[in-house]
């Protein structure tokens, strides 16, 4: 049911009928004709999103065995399972555009496609797991909610499912931090340090400032993006500042101040040079994440082979029975 042959008679990037459908808030479906640029933008974005989900399993996965209680282990396992599932939804959505998951994984492993830089930061303490849930998932949800109205049907439907499932992720992170913040002095300090580590990287998850984001306008014209990077970042800050207060933790930005005139929280300047450095492979854990991913893929080869062998054996038995 996928659109492998839809490159025939492809409309131009500014095809009036295509843009009219977008303007009408209509949805594009896999077998529709669509501009090559639209298809390529979506493949790139959805694949990067899928890669982020499965790379994102690593920092938390490493804490499942060390989580401080059975309850916390079970919750963390459920969250990492969700991330695997979200990766699957997204690879499947990308495949409706005529690409193959196997190729997307190959491109990830070859370093030809990106994943979110946020997962290149380390999680040295249990409080980091709380900060990831609260801040990283909070930023992700802020980004993802508008994607449920993305112009490409399969991506939008996958995002509806993901947002619904993810609504527990942020809460469990908040709960971890709330518990630590109201615990011993050492626990409170641990929570504060984790927030100090994750605040700025979380703000960078929304991408460069609008005037530095060359593809944004096109994505917005095509209904892939609904809000600019800066709009979403501001929305996230406005939601998060009061939550930090409820946690009894401070956000590491001396310039944070409520602006009565605009009704928004003003925040300090973001050091994007760090972001670009991480994107370019120089983050604390880029090499480790990629090595782990490639290793997991290689170590999983026997599982795939075994499933193949089982299916083949089962099929030949069924054939034998039927004959």
């Amino acid at each position, binding site marked *: *049911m*996928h659109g*492998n042959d839809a490159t025939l*008679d492809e409309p131009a990037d500014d095809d009036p009928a295509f843009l009219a459908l977008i303007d009408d808030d209509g949805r594009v*479906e896999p*077998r*529709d*004709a669509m501009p090559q640029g639209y298809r390529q933008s979506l493949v790139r974005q959805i694949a990067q999103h899928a890669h982020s989900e499965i790379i994102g399993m690593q920092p938390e996965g490493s804490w499942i065995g060390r989580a401080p209680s059975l309850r916390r282990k079970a919750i963390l396992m*459920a969250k990492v*399972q*969700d991330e695997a*599932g979200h990766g*699957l*939804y997204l690879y*499947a*959505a990308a*495949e*409706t555009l005529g690409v*193959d*998951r*196997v190729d997307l994984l190959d491109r990830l492993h070859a370093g030809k496609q990106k994943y979110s830089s946020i997962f290149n930061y380390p999680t040295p303490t249990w409080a980091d797991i709380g900060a990831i849930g609260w801040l990283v998932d909070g930023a992700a949800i802020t980004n993802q909610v508008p994607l449920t109205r993305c112009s490409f049907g*399969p991506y939008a*439907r*996958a995002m509806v*499912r993901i947002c619904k*499932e993810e609504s527990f992720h942020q809460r469990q992170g908040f709960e971890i931090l709330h518990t630590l913040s109201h615990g011993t002095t050492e626990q409170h300090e641990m929570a504060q340090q984790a927030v100090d580590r994750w605040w700025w990287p979380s703000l960078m998850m929304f991408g460069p400032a609008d005037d530095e984001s060359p593809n944004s306008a096109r994505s917005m014209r095509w209904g892939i993006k609904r809000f600019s990077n800066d709009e979403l970042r501001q929305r996230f800050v406005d939601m998060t500042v009061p939550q930090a207060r409820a946690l009894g933790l401070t956000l590491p930005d001396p310039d944070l101040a409520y602006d009565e005139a605009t009704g928004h929280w003003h925040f300090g300047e973001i050091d994007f040079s760090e972001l670009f450095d991480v994107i370019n492979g120089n983050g604390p854990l880029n090499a480790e994440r990629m090595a782990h991913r490639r290793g997991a893929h290689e170590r999983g080869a026997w599982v*795939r082979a075994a*499933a*193949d062998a*089982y*299916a*083949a054996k*089962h*099929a030949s038995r069924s054939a034998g029975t039927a004959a």
Partner: protein
Amino acid sequence: MSSRGWPLWEVFVRARRGLAHTHVGSLHAPDAEMAVRNARDVFTRRSEGVSIWVVPAAAITASSPDEKDAFFDPAGDKVYRHPTFYEVPEGVEHL
């Protein structure tokens, strides 16, 4: 469809008794049994369904989007198929 690896399966879930199966997405699996099992793990982790159907993507035939307008046109100009086409005298109910 996948050119390499496992075949692609389209997955349909019945959310609860009385409702029809609805398409929820797709996945790769070596056979139908594994496809059903994986679909359960992926699409019904929160009791979203009471029944799952999987179909090889290759077994689906779709109406062609290229001839979409012409194909569905016959329904377009038959307004008399709708009850609002008929005038009902004022005050007449249950019609």
